[in-house]
């Protein structure tokens, strides 16, 4: 049984504490929704979990996964940036990330179809709208299977249909024994435990530190 345990995690950025004393545990099939006002450290928490920021103190343990691989290698991270190249087509972008992340390239057309980009497969990503770019980012969650999803504001720029799509993807992920840690302001259409971050002091707006 897979289980992600976080104990007494603290993060310091630029000499200032962002959050401290964060502890929670998620088991397979569960989701944790991270809440908090702007600057409370939601993005920082997800980046620490993804190994993209050093933790000041605390432990992050993933039990029951691939013992040879780190948490980062078993996790999908979807942040504010979509990691797509404007001059590559939709298919080329997804195909690259699928291959690079060790996924199944044969699933690329199906994944594009299921995020609603099937008809745009040969279009350069430069022509996509913000919501379509977000859908393209989410498509890599389908082509490369990872047990842990770290989602930072996954609903950003998505329309209502897109949010339903995302909710469906997350339900499938949980049903297949994965686990999700998501930071959000908007309702995700997901029943998960809530983790409320209260920044220890006033922080600049999130955009400044992201």
């Amino acid at each position, binding site marked *: 049984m897979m289980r992600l345990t976080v104990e007494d995690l603290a993060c310091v*950025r*630029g000499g200032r504490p962002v959050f401290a004393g964060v502890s929670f545990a998620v088991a397979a099939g569960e989701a944790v929704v991270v809440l908090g006002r702007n600057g409370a450290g939601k993005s920082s928490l997800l980046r620490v979990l*993804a*190994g*993209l*920021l*050093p933790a000041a103190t605390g432990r992050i343990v993933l039990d029951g996964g691939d013992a040879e*691989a780190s948490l*980062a*290698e078993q*996790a999908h*991270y979807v*942040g*504010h*940036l*979509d*990691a*797509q*190249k*404007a*001059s*590559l087509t939709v298919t*080329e972008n997804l*195909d*690259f*990330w699928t*291959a*690079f*992340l*060790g996924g199944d390239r044969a699933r690329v057309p199906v994944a594009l179809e299921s995020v609603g980009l099937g008809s745009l497969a040969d279009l350069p990503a430069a022509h996509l709208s913000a919501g379509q770019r977000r859908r393209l980012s989410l498509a890599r969650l389908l082509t490369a299977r990872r047990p842990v999803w770290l989602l930072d504001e996954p609903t950003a720029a998505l329309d209502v249909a897109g949010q339903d799509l995302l909710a469906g993807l997350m339900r499938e992920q949980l049903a297949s024994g994965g686990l999700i840690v998501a930071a959000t302001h908007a309702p995700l259409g997901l029943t998960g435990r809530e983790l409320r971050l209260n920044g220890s002091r006033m922080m600049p707006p999130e955009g400044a530190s992201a």
Partner: protein
Amino acid sequence: MNALLALLQREVRLAVRIGGGALIGTLFLLAVVIVVPFAIGPDLNLLRRIGPAILWIGVLLASLLALDRLFAADHEDGALDLMLMASAPLELTVAVKGAAHWLTTGLPLVVVAPLMGLFLDLDLGTGLMVAATMLAGTPALTFLGLIGAALAVALRRGGLLLPVLILPLAIPVLVFGVAASQAAIVGPVPFGTPFTILCALTLASLVLGPVAAAAALRLARE
């Protein structure tokens, strides 16, 4: 392995598409080679004597020209985050990006160098010898440049900082590259002596460049 092949394919595609930097270096070299004879004047002997050095300076600067965006672009669109998380070792990821950059920037410079030599009154045979020294030396320039490109991400400064950081490391390559070219044309030093040192510099930088660049990118996580 699949992951790295996919990365190589993507990098080469990006470089040759519109907005990529594949031919910028070659055009820069052309500009250097065209203006030098106007500056030097009609002294063909002088031009022939300094020709290999001019070609090498042009190639050195052209190689560094397109490098500063190599990691900065991936950093800005979030791709670097995913590369840091991936199971492919970051050193190899960096090395593959360097190899793709050399294929699309360094190799074209080597190919056009004999033609550029004609502008400097170097005959085709001499130009080919100079190109041979560049084939051995330009990978060193690219792979040392990786360090500067990674530091440009870490320090959040791009542009001119990179050539300034890399220049001290690139100077030995320039010295032995020009020395090997001169040895091939006029002697008296045998061609092999500077050429083998040039090869050694390249082999060392093929190892050191990716390791140092990956370390810089890891430090840049903020």
